[in-house]
């Protein structure tokens, strides 16, 4: 060892020893770590059975939870795969139970809410003040547990049983055995992975529930429709029985006592009945129904009122229709209407009136019979139809009195005089019709009037026979009045004779005057012939003609017209 080494030893000796001690501790730790895998299981087992078990569990809780959390975050699929066989059936079973109960409750609520029976229950709850749920429960508890068997799961033998007292005896052992066999058969046939079991069956009004337990099953034969609460209570009872069976040091008597208590049918029914969840009474269905009923009633009343108004109007119009007697309105087959009544043949037709009253069902139909009306308007129409009066005759009817006024021909007048009293509805005839003039009468009257007028139309003469020129105008007037005299005479059926009469004043000699009279008459005849008067009709009055001896004393001439009957 040289000096340098010696110096290094002196300076670093302490550090070298510390380094050697550390290396030794490291070797010891490595050797302990090397055997840890073999020692750890043994150590853990020792802790589990020792007094430090609880302390160890508390100490491991936090790191195990953290490790599990890290494992879930880092190896999610691995954890899921590992838990899948457990989680799947557990979730399915929980969800299935919850859904089964929910569906049963919903079904029951729906069935009871939207039926007449449900509405009746709501009315009963409203009247009595009892919650609707209790009323429903009271009525829906129309179920009865007929039999309850506690069956040993392995052998199918009956461990305990309870039956409703009024039911006939049955071979419970055989039934329980057969039920167990069928349940096994169903489970082996259709159950998946051996985990699914027969839980219920329904035959008619009977329901069978088979509630499975690890050691024993509960078979419940129910008549009616039980609620989900009963199922829950049965499960609780089966769990109590299993708790008694599994209890440390349980005796047969204890288990039998627990079974008898659990299978007490009266207590079971009471518990299930009171365990139904109380639901708040919902009034909207009832209010909805009442609103619908009120609306329907109001609509019906409005429609009925509108219909009655229409019928009244129809009745009023028909009642005011002359010649129609309304005997009835048949509206039993609304909106079709049939009008029954009596109708006079002379009444105005009803169709326009009915067409105006048509509605959704069409115009009212007519079912009428004929009759004779004494109504004045109808009697007037009847009289007009039967008498057919000319326009110059006016007919009136008032109080059964037929009045006839005006002018009519004698033929019609004769007929009317015979027929009028025989018209139905006429009790008296007041005839004030003047007979109408014939053309012959008119023509005769005109000729007679002309014969009176002609002597007044005179011509004034000066001395001599020639007329004064200014006086010749009367000749034109005479000729005009005598125009067509032959035709008028023919119509009148008479013979006409015109005589031209000449006159003179008092002065002069008789012979001279006679000549003047004849000359003046002849002058007038000639003047008229010149103006178209037929010569055969006119002659000059002779001085000896007895009809003209008393002639006026004046210097004139005039025409005298004589009428005589035709031969």
């Amino acid at each position, binding site marked *: 060892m040289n000096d340098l080494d010696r110096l290094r030893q002196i300076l670093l000796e302490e550090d070298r020893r510390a380094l050697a001690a550390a290396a030794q501790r490291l070797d010891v730790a490595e050797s302990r770590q090397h055997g840890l895998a073999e020692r750890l299981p043994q150590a853990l087992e020792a802790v589990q059975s020792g007094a430090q078990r609880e302390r160890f569990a508390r100490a491991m809780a936090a790191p195990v939870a953290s490790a599990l959390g890290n494992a879930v975050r880092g190896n999610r699929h691995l954890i899921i795969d590992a838990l899948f066989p457990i989680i799947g059936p557990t979730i399915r079973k929980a969800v299935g139970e919850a859904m089964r109960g929910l569906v049963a409750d919903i079904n029951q609520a729906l069935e009871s809410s939207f039926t007449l029976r449900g509405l009746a229950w709501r009315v009963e709850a409203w009247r009595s003040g009892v919650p609707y749920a209790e009323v429903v429960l009271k009525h829906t508890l129309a179920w009865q547990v007929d039999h309850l068997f506690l069956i*040993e799961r*392995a*052998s*199918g*033998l*009956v*461990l*305990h049983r309870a039956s409703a007292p009024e039911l006939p005896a049955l*071979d419970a*052992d*055989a*039934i329980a*055995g*057969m039920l167990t*066999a*069928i349940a*096994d*058969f169903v489970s*082996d046939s259709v159950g998946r992975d051996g985990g699914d079991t027969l839980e219920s069956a329904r035959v008619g009004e009977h329901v069978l529930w088979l509630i499975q337990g690890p*050691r024993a099953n509960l078979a419940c034969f129910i008549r009616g429709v039980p609620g989900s609460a009963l199922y829950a209570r049965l499960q609780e009872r089966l769990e109590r029985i299993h708790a008694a*069976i599994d209890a440390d040091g*349980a005796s*047969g008597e204890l*288990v*039998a006592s627990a*079974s008898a208590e659990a299978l007490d049918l009266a207590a079971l029914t009471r518990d299930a009945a009171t365990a139904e969840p109380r639901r708040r009474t919902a009034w909207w269905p009832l209010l909805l129904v009442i609103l619908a009923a009120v609306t329907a009633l109001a609509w019906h009343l409005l429609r009925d009122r509108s219909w009655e108004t229409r019928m009244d109007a129809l009745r009023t119009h028909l009642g005011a229709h002359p010649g129609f007697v309304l005997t009835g309105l048949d509206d039993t087959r609304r909106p079709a209407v049939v009008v029954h009544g009596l109708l006079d043949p002379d009444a105005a037709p009803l169709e326009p009136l009915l067409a105006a009253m048509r509605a959704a069902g069409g115009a009212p139909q007519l079912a009428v019979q004929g009759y004779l009306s004494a109504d004045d308007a109808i009697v007037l129409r009847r009289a007009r139809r039967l008498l057919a009066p000319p326009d110059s005759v006016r007919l009136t009817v008032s109080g059964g009195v037929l009045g006839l006024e005006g002018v009519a021909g004698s033929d019609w007048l004769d007929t009317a005089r015979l027929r009028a009293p025989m018209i139905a509805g006429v009790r008296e005839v007041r005839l004030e019709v003047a007979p109408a003039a014939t053309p012959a009468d008119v023509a005769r009257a005109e000729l007679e009037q002309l014969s009176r007028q002609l002597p007044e139309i005179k011509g004034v003469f000066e001395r001599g026979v020639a007329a004064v020129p200014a006086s010749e105008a009367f000749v034109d007037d005479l000729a005009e009045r005598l125009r067509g005299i032959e035709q008028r005479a023919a119509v009148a059926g008479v013979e006409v004779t015109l005589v031209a009469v000449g006159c003179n004043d008092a002065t002069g000699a008789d012979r001279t005057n006679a000549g003047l009279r004849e000359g003046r008459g002849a002058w007038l005849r000639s003047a008229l012939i010149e103006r178209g008067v037929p010569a055969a009709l006119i002659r000059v009055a002779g001085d000896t003609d007895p009809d003209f001896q008393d002639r006026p004393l004046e210097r004139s001439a005039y025409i005298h017209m004589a009428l005589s009957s035709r031969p």
Partner: protein
Amino acid sequence: MIRATARKICMLGDFGVGKTSLVARYVHGTFSEKYLTTVGVKVDTCEVARPDGTDCKLVVWDMAGRNGVDTLAASYLRGASGLLMVADGTRAATLRTALDLLMQARAVVPEAAAVLMLNKLDLIEHWEIEPLTVAELRNSLPVFETSALSGDGVARAFATLTAELPA
């Protein structure tokens, strides 16, 4: 654990050995035989007197004829206290089937008592099973020659099985 007062008995044997006829003669029938062809078993009950004078109720599971104990039959066997093995004396093969079924059933219910019924005693002249074989069988388990037709031996077989049921 509360115990049932009745005891479960399973009747096993090959097809056509007369199990159902034996049951029909002896037990109180509740269910139709159609269950044998549908579910594979028919359960009936009967009361049998014990040697001590008390009555014991037997719940007899008449299982449809089969050659082996399958899964379903195993589930039917669970909880059985006694086994009624049935063979047809006129068919020696049915005895082998009965003994084979007995061995398989023992695997499921090792504690169960068992008796062997050699049926169709009324056709004894046609039996294929030798008397020597029967004598050897008696060394292993109770053997009864029975006739479902006449009822011979049936009651004794049930009584013996009842007496040997485990407590």
